[in-house]
């Protein structure tokens, strides 16, 4: 058999699960998990802190995507960008949340498949443009949305961006994940063309588009059912008085 594997580092996973379930602040949960895992692997405290510091420095680039666009987006919002996006979409007779998001899903997934992953994204596309457009499309049909429904529409916008990106980028042959798979398989003595890995991703990518598009279509139907059913109900009691 193999050498004995130290199972104690799994305690970090337990800390994460318990912490998230009990709804402690995630930053605190992650830090606690890091320290617990480090101790379980018999690292001294100094090494744990140094590994944390190193990791934090190595991943600073992640933050740029989020932080740098904020000034521009904020300034444009102050001058009515969201309002304009809402009004603009409301001019299209046949626009619905579902249809808008299906088109976005298609564009996002196909451009990501061509390597153009930075055409979308949450700070630069979803918050300033896609979300207000979806809201505008819904408000045109149903009037002012109840907060609960509005939040569902916004969450669906973010979800659609993610689904499009994930299932698109991985069939672009020069994408990092393909290189990672290729290198790992080479290390295990299997030589596969990166192009083959990309091509075999296509069936899943197509299915993902179909599955999510059907969900978006049904999301439209649900909005219609919920909002046209509740609107008269909330008006009637007043009318009866």
């Amino acid at each position, binding site marked *: 058999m193999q050498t004995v*594997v130290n199972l104690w*580092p*799994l305690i970090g996973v337990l800390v994460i699960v318990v912490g998230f379930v009990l709804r402690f*602040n*995630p*930053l*605190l949960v*992650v*830090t606690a*998990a890091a320290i617990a*895992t*480090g101790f379980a*692997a018999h*690292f001294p405290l*100094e090494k744990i*802190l*140094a*590994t*944390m*510091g190193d990791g*934090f*420095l190595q*991943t*600073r*680039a992640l933050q*740029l*995507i*989020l932080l*740098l*666009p*904020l000034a*521009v987006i*904020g300034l444009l919002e*102050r*001058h*009515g960008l969201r*309002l304009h996006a809402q009004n603009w979409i409301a001019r299209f007779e046949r626009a619905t949340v579902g249809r808008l998001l299906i088109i976005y899903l298609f564009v996002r997934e196909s451009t990501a498949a061509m390597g153009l992953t*930075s*055409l979308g994204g*949450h700070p630069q596309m*979803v*918050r300033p*443009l896609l979300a207000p457009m979806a809201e505008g499309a819904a408000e045109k049909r149903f009037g002012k949305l109840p907060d609960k429904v509005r*939040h569902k529409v*916004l*969450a669906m*916008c*973010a979800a659609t961006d*993610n*689904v499009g990106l994930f299932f698109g980028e*991985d069939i672009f042959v020069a994408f990092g994940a393909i290189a*990672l798979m290729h290198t790992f398989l080479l290390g295990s003595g*299997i030589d596969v063309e990166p192009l*083959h*890995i*990309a091509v*075999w991703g296509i*069936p899943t*990518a197509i299915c993902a588009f179909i*599955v999510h598009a059907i969900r978006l279509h049904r999301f439209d139907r649900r909005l219609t059912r919920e909002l046209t059913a509740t609107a008269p109900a909330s008006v009637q009691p007043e009318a009866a008085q």
Partner: protein
Amino acid sequence: MIISIQYLYWLAGVLLLITAGMILADRTHPKRWSSALFWLLFAIPFLVGEHLPSVVVGVGVVLMALIAGLGGVGRGAHVELHDKASRASAGRLGHKLFIPALAIPLTTVIGSVLLKNVEIGGVPLLDPKNTTFVSLGLGCLIALGLACWLTRDTPVQALRESRRLTEALGWAMVLPQMLAMLGLLFNEAGVGTAVAHVTTTYINLDYKLVAVMVYVLGMALFTVIMGNGFAAFPVMTGGVGVPVLVGIYGGNPAVMAAIGMFSGYCGTLMTPMAANFNIVPAALLELPDKNAVIKAQMPTALMMLLVNIVLLYVLM
């Protein structure tokens, strides 16, 4: 290189420092001192990170987590443009408002695709390892110039807006980096080997369908735990994929790898550990439920896992 990613780190650091300064100057801020300290601690690794010992950065990270955990990061008041003025401005500018917003992604794409290999006097124009990030940074600066010119507002107002959105995001902004850091620590501590050991020791892989399911669901589960499919791939493929699916059942390794990674992505759609895709967008859209995006994605992810099991079983 002429434009290095280091400049963008400094820019980000300065932005965070200004946010901290504005909070400190804001006497009405509900959590003035602790919030300012939080954003100051966050600014430091961007400004002087490479000159500090890693341990010091690590201590800073722990302090930030403590401030956030004790509820010390608050949100200040912000003077919005009057609704009427905002409406008038939207009417006056119209579609022109889209120009700076679209300039960011367009510049990023142009920079990372066309300017990738441009050299001036033998020196690469953009940081070769970080073309996308550097192009994005340039795009933001160009867009900021355009936005100020179109709206006739000042860069100082842009900084106020940056502070407003930074505070709206709050501690969630730091979470992706914290999780990436945890992933590195998990790797060093051997969490991957432990998970692979558990899955391969206690599950009977004598049926092809069971082996396929263990690989697909294992990729997803492991990604849920680590928040990243890239961390799960070597573990599950080394533990189950190569020895069992390829070794015993003679599967096509390209199919296995492609569908395996996609199964990992299904996990990414379902986990708060992938904060930059799931938690940060919820904060950006100011949703009260931080898991709202995950909930919206869950049915798609579960259905795709089923699809992946079928596809891998049939195509392999």
